[in-house]
Structure formats: C-alpha cells, structure tokens
C-alpha cells in the first residue's frame, strides 16, 4: 500500500512536480499557527494575559530547533512522501511542541509571583492541531490493524504519563489547577468512571435480555423501541432532575435503600439517568444483530438438533456479538460525555471542574475537566472499535464498507 503509493508518487514526480494536497492544507494551518501567539502569561488565573510569540517564549536555541523540526515536517508533508515518514515527522514535531510548551512555562513564569499563570495560546493549539491532523492522515494511509491502533494508543498514554511525571509541564496553568485539587481530581475521576462504566454494565445486564425478548416476540418490539426512543429525547439535565424526587422518596420510604446509597441528589439519579439513556443503543443493536443472523445458520442449528437455548447461546449471540459490541461502544462514548452533566445534581465526575470553571470564568479549570473527559472517550472508542473488528467474522468484515 505505502510502497505502491510511493512508486506512483515517484512516477508522477518524474513527469511533473505535484505536491501532496492534504499536506499543503495542513502546512497552511501550521503556518497560520506560527503567526499567532505561542503562549500567554497571565498575572493570575482569571485576568487576561500577555501574548508571547515562539521567539519570546523559548530560549534562542529552543526556538531555532522547534522551527527547524517544523520546517522539515512541513516539507515532508507537502511532498508525496511515504506514510511512515509522515507519521515519524509529525510525531517528532508533536514531541518537540510538548517539550517547547513546558520550557516556555519555565522561562515565562515570573519569579516571585505564585499567582502568575503560563498557558498555551492559539498558536500552540493550531500547530498541535495541524500536526495531529498529519498524524491522523498518516495513520489513515497506513491502515493499522486493531492491535496496531491499541498499541499506538498505549504508546501515547505512556508518553503523556512520562511527561506529566517528569514535571516538565508543572509550570503550565492546567497543572497548577491540578496541583491545588489533586485529591478531588482523582475522586472526580473515580466517580466519572464509576458512573459511565457502572451504568453501562447495568444497561447490558438489562438490555441484552430485553433485546432477545424483542427479537423473539416481534409484537412488543416496536413498543419497547419507541418507548426507549422517547427517553432519548428528554434532555439530560431534565432527566437527571426528574429522577431526584422518586429516588428521594425511595430513600425515605424503602427500608435499607439509603444504606446502599440511594438518595435524591448525588450519584443515584445520575446513574439511573445514564442507565436509561444506555438502554436504547444496547436493545436496538441486540435486536439488529439477532435479526441479521442468516436464516441458513439457524436452519443448520435446528437441523443439528440444537435446543432453543443452545441455538441462542451457541449460534445467534456469537454471530450478533459484533453488532452488540458496536452498541456498547456508542453507549460508553456517550456515557463518558453525559457523565459530565451529573455534576449539576451533585453526582461528581469531571463535570465538577467544567461547571466550576464556567462559573468562575477560569478556562484552566474548564480544561482540567474537559481534557480528561475527551481523552477517556477517545480511548474508549479506539479500544472498543478494535474489539469489534477482532470479533467480526470474515464475512461481516468483507461486507463492511
């Protein structure tokens, strides 16, 4: 694939110079990023900052090094170069950017002012976005298999973990927000994961049997799917709010309910709301997966003398599994995002920082909540996509677009 592209590129290059158009667009974005400020220095976390260019934000050798790496990567991007070279170049620039923003944090932080904040500015984000685009484009061309994608994800996580551990970014504003709230950050992370994963497990435990029942009894199928569709149209903050009263009533009137953590506000209504939102994708995909099992497979199973139960567990469910896991992927990514809203009713999670940050107009605090949320959702999507691909039988994989 990469080789044939390179050969084609070579042939075209011999006839007439043709730049890589995707690379050209990405380079324009990167050049735009160079024109914008690289970092801002704020006297405290809320006041507006002073913009600094790359030349002002980095020591001379540092800025020359960064610009040189960037120039090489842009050149590689604009030429019809092989995908692995583009991948290597873009990853190198991303690492250089990560180092540079850390160094600029150290350089720009005025000594003796503990309230001063150094934050990445538009130029940094645009450069990082351009290089992430180049990475994504190179990965798309290389078409890594499921294991390759998960390995790339793991490598990214290790690099980020290493940078965070090393203290390189400790002078940046997001990590200063983190330093003040390290304990509550991890409590929020635990609550967020508990909400998103716990409601998913509950939704699968209830949704799978409901889906199987809907498949077996077509009469109830439309009613169940319509009811679940209606639940989806209720806005999340309203659903969270609506559950406060009934759960509060249960906590007061059902003996033992309070002991297992059921109460009006807090995690319980958020958990139930996420569970209700999760049911539709699980049930709908279970029904769709079972409906797509070929009649010949079922006939063969019946011909072999399998009982209904054997046919369900040994034929239908295994064949429907990729579609069911696709539903689970949708639910998990959606839940990780929706769990942010739980903070509005005291359910905890990363939303606490998002809404506190909005309230205090402190963008660094908003970022402390949104960056881990987006990272979690992205990681969940990559991992579950890989699982779906691994589980898909060859026939399913061939018919996929």
């Amino acid at each position, binding site marked *: 694939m990469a080789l044939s592209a390179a050969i084609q590129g070579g042939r075209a290059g011999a006839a007439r110079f043709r730049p890589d*158009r*995707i690379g050209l*667009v990405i380079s324009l974005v990167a050049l735009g990023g160079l024109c914008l400020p690289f970092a801002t220095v704020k006297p405290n976390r809320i006041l507006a900052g002073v913009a600094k260019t790359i030349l002002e934000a980095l020591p001379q050798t540092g800025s020359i090094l960064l610009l040189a790496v960037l120039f090489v990567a842009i050149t590689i991007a604009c030429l019809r170069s092989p995908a692995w070279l583009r991948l290597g170049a873009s990853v190198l620039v991303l690492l250089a950017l990560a180092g540079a923003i850390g160094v600029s944090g150290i350089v720009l932080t005025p000594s003796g002012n503990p309230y001063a904040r150094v934050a990445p500015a538009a130029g940094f984000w645009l450069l990082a976005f351009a290089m992430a*685009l180049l990475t*994504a*484009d190179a*990965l*798309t*061309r290389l078409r890594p298999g499921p294991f390759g994608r998960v390995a790339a994800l793991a490598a990214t996580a290790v690099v980020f973990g290493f940078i965070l551990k090393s203290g390189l970014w400790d002078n940046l504003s997001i990590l200063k927000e983190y330093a003040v709230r390290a304990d509550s950050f991890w409590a929020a992370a635990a609550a967020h994961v508990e909400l998103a994963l716990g409601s998913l497990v509950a939704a699968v435990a209830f949704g799978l049997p409901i889906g199987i029942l809907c498949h077996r009894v077509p009469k109830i199928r439309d009613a169940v799917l319509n009811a679940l*569709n*209606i639940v*989806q*149209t*209720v*806005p*999340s*903050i*309203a*659903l969270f*709010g*609506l559950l*406060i*009263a009934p759960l509060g009533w249960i906590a007061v009137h059902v003996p033992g309910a309070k002991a297992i953590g059921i109460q009006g506000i807090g995690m319980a209504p958020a958990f139930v709301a996420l569970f209700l939102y999760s049911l539709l994708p699980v049930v709908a995909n279970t029904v769709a997966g079972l409906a797509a099992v070929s009649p010949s497979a079922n006939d063969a199973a019946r011909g072999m003398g399998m009982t209904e139960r054997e046919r369900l567990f040994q034929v239908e469910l295994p064949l429907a599994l990729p579609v069911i896991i696709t539903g689970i992927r949708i639910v998990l*990514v959606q839940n*990780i*995002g*929706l769990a*942010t*809203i739980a903070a*509005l*009713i005291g359910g905890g999670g990363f*939303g606490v920082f*998002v*809404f506190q*940050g*909005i309230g205090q*107009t402190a*963008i660094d605090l*908003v*970022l402390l*909540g*949104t960056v881990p*949320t*987006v990272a979690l*959702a*992205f990681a*969940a*999507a990559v991992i579950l996509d890989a699982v779906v691909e691994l589980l898909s039988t060859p026939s399913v994989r061939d018919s996929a*677009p």
Partner: protein
Amino acid sequence: MTRVWSFLPRMALLAFLIAFLWHPAWFAGLLRPLTENGAPPIYDQGSLALLTLDHLAIVAVATLAASLIAIALAVLVTRPSGREFLPLARSLVNIGQTVPPVAVLALAVPMTGFGEKPTLIALFLYGLLPIFENTLTGLSTVPANVMEAARGVGMTGRQRLWQVELPLAAPIILAGIRLSVVISMATATIGSTVAASTLGAVIIAGLTSNNLAFIVQGGVIVGVIAILIFDALRGLETLLARRAGG
C-alpha cells in the same frame, strides 16, 4: 388504518403543546402536586413561549448552518478533485464524535463570552457530524448503473450531482439532519448553564430552587417538540424515498 392511529396521538400532542405554551396557567393545577411549600407551579421568571421560540431559533440556525457546511464538505470530498481528502475526513468525523457536547460548549465560552454564541457553536459543530456522515453514505450508495446511465445521456458532473446524486441521497441526508436536530434540541438546554436563553433555563431554575414542576415542564416541552420534529422529518423522508423510487 395504522396511519390514522399514528397520526392522531401526534396531533393531540401538538395541540397539548400549543395550549400549554399559549396559556400555561390552565395547567397549574396539574403541576401543583409537584411543588412544595407553595412554590409556583408554572415558571414565573419569563415567558415559556418566548423561551421556546429562542430555543427553536438557536436549534434552527445551528442546524441550518451545520447542514449547509456538512453537505458541501461531503460533496467536495466525493468529487474526483477532492477524493484524496475522503479518508482523512472520515477519520476526523470519527474522532470528532468522541468529543462530548458539554466540552465543546465549555471550551467555546472563553472565545465568545457567555450567551447564545457558545451554544450556537457547540450545536453547529456537534450537528455537523451526523449530517456529514449520512451525506457521504447517501452519495456513495447511489447505484453505479444509475451513474453510468447519467453519464451515458451526456450529463455533466454538475448536472449529475444536482439531478441524480443529491435527489437519490436526499432521504439519507434528511435522516442525518433529523438525528442532528434531536441531539441539538436536548443539548441546547445545557446552553443555559452559560446563560443562553433556552428552555434549559426553566430546568436549571427547577434544579436550583428544588422545584420539580419547573423541571417537568422544561423537560416535557423539549421532549415533545423533539418527538414532533423527529416524526415530521421521518414522514418527509418516507415521502422523498417514495418519490426517488427507493
């Protein structure tokens, strides 16, 4: 027969919605059991009808902009001159869908300030994805022999796009717009956490003053409108699909 049965409840739902927005006080008795300590059963910090109109306006503007841009982008990357951008565009859409709408909303605030603008940006960006994806699907599932026939009768690329591809893809594109509208209706309520004038203001007022009646009326109005729009657009899709012979 089944058509009448599915049509009547929707008309009743629409009538209920209009009556509620026209004269909310008629329904005060219905909502009073949900309040405590003599709290007002009907939202009293503004007009429900005006909030509903603001809510619908934000969703309409964002969806219209998202539809125009998403369809244009999908057409661009499926033309011969833009085809090399297609794989990258697909992966970008997949990555974009993992970003939660609240994150987009919160991150737009520092750029635009509080109010309607961050909500519009969040709804626009989040609405792009389903429409773009469905337009791509719709354009790429136009049967090859139909395209061949269009070429055979001497249609130019532009004529093929406007007279063959887009009409055939219209039902699937509309399905994407429908999905986008339903998501936007619900997401717009979160916009009220950044001071946008939407029905979310009613729900949030209920959350902060512990008034269940406010939460119910805000949630029900949004849900009912979403269901009605969902049904209307699905009806339009069936109509278009029938006209396209699908």
